[in-house]
């Protein structure tokens, strides 16, 4: 089986800045891959190199197993959805979607049929004759998606496609995006800095840090086992502790039990401290506990007030060990 996209030691420099460094990546066919990482980590640069808008400084790009490092974008057969949508303002919705088919010299009848299908898939058949500026943000987003998939691209590339939508619409569009991907079976590569988006959509999550690959895997494998403090922080872990007998660990606050004085510990590592802050959350309370020189976030069902002497229970099977000193890439971080 050939892979739709393979990056082989790809590096991209801008002047003195290394945006992407020595990246090896294989995008699995028919799956949803998410490139994830904080701002400036090289996500867009990576996507633009795959699309052919940027040439790598070093390294090779293979598309469907064939050398494509220097291939211009128009000869790659990829579908790109831009953050700004980049719809052609002088064309109607239908003609926007038909653009790629016209470039491929598809027949009139075939074009009409496929544009119709694509618009139906994104639920916009009734707006075919509108101009982009007469559409809402969400509708423009769908047109951009239809325009990209109608050409049956070997890979669908999406650069933060949902970031211009309001929070509610974003969550709804996520699901629609997933539906379209599942229905068409297209290989998709999504760039995002929103870990929830990546967790929900991705079959393969690729976490970048300063232009380098930090961790890679299925969300179900990555989320419970972040390989470094960087990944853990990025995925929303908040407790970073040094526990006697365990070394540096992280643990989600939901698994940390805060015990009021007199409560019987069921077994596990115990730390003693003072409740510093208590936040009521409906079903339980989130408690920040000062224990020695560290702060532990945990939850409790008991009545605890700030200032109370408490103990904190860390179940051993929930502790995630973080490597003593995760290899810090000495790249973009220094030069920037």
């Amino acid at each position, binding site marked *: 089986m050939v892979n739709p996209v393979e990056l082989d030691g790809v590096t991209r420099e801008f002047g003195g800045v290394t945006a992407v460094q020595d990246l090896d990546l294989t995008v699995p066919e028919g799956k949803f891959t998410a490139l994830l990482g904080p701002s400036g980590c090289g996500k867009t640069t990576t996507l633009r190199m795959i*699309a*052919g*808008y940027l040439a790598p400084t070093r390294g090779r790009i293979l598309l469907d197993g064939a050398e494509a490092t220097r291939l*211009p*974008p*128009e000869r*790659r*057969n*990829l*579908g*790109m959805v*831009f953050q*700004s949508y*980049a*719809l*052609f*303002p*002088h064309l109607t919705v239908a003609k926007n979607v038909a*653009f*790629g088919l016209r*470039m*491929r010299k598809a027949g009139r009848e075939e074009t009409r049929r496929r544009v119709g299908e694509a618009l139906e898939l994104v639920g916009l058949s009734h707006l075919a004759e509108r101009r982009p500026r007469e559409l809402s943000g969400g509708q423009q987003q769908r047109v951009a998606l239809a*325009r990209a998939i109608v*050409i049956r691209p070997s890979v669908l590339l999406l650069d933060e496609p949902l970031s211009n939508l309001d929070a509610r619409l974003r969550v709804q569009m996520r699901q629609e995006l997933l539906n379209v991907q599942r229905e068409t079976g297209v290989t998709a590569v999504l760039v995002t800095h929103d870990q929830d988006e990546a967790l929900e959509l991705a079959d393969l999550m690729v976490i970048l840090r300063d232009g380098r690959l930090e961790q890679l895997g299925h969300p179900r494998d990555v989320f419970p086992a972040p390989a470094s403090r960087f990944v853990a922080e990025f995925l929303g872990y908040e407790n970073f502790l040094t526990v006697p007998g365990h070394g540096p660990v992280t643990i989600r606050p939901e698994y940390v039990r805060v015990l009021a004085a007199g409560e019987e510990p069921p077994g596990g590592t115990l730390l003693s401290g003072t409740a510093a802050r208590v936040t009521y959350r409906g079903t339980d309370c989130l408690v920040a506990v000062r224990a020695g020189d560290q702060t532990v976030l945990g939850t409790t069902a008991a009545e605890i007030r700030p200032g109370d002497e408490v103990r904190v229970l860390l179940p051993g099977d929930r502790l995630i060990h973080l490597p003593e000193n995760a290899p810090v890439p000495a790249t973009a971080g220094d030069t920037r």
Partner: protein
Amino acid sequence: MRRRPLLTALCALAYLFMLGPILLVVAVAFSGGDTIHFPPEGLSLKWFGKALSQHSFTSALGTSVLVATGATLLALLVGVPLALAVQRGRLPGRRVIEALCLSPIVVPELVVGLALYQQLMVGLRVTALGTLMIGHAVLLIPYAVRVTGASLAMADPMLEEAARGLGAGPVTAFFRVTLPVLAPGILSAGLLSFITSFNNVPLSLLLTGPGTTTLPVEMLHYVEFSFDPVVAAVSTLLLALTVAVAVVTERLIGFNKVFGR
């Protein structure tokens, strides 16, 4: 309106100030009398007839249209690619190029005219018509660059990339996407250029010669010696032409797009 009497009065004055002279000229053009005089003595179309039958005016009109058209096309031909290069290109010294092509606005027209006169007409023996076109084009390039550049700045630079990604080569992407998106800007640059050239006096004054005179210059010469309403009739015809162009523009693309966006 009732609450702002001062503002209303000022507005009325401003309108009177701007439109008054124009209305006067139009009224005089329809005069039956023999001199420029207000109120006009009687009503007639004879001055229009006389204007249109006077060879010096009709041939000057022909020259003006020819010069304005040629100069506009020349200016667009140079200005649009320049605007594209300055805004989108990566060529070194873009700022210098931009400053250079805006400089004709700053340099006095008479200086430009004199330089062209010496270099082209005397030096290279270019005809008066050719020199006029080139001279006007030089004058118009800043407008072409500026107006086209403004609409280019408004357009999403990702559009071309989107077209490329969908299978269009660089040339196809330019003609299918970049150019159509810029069309209203180019059209308004063209109209502005045409009218600017058509109304130009200082540069034309230096570069016109016997047999090759533009309409405004011919009118200027005419009023030096005659004081009849023919000039008013010609002005009225020009006014009608300008209004017609404006109406057509409005119908075609809308003013808000030409002057607003």
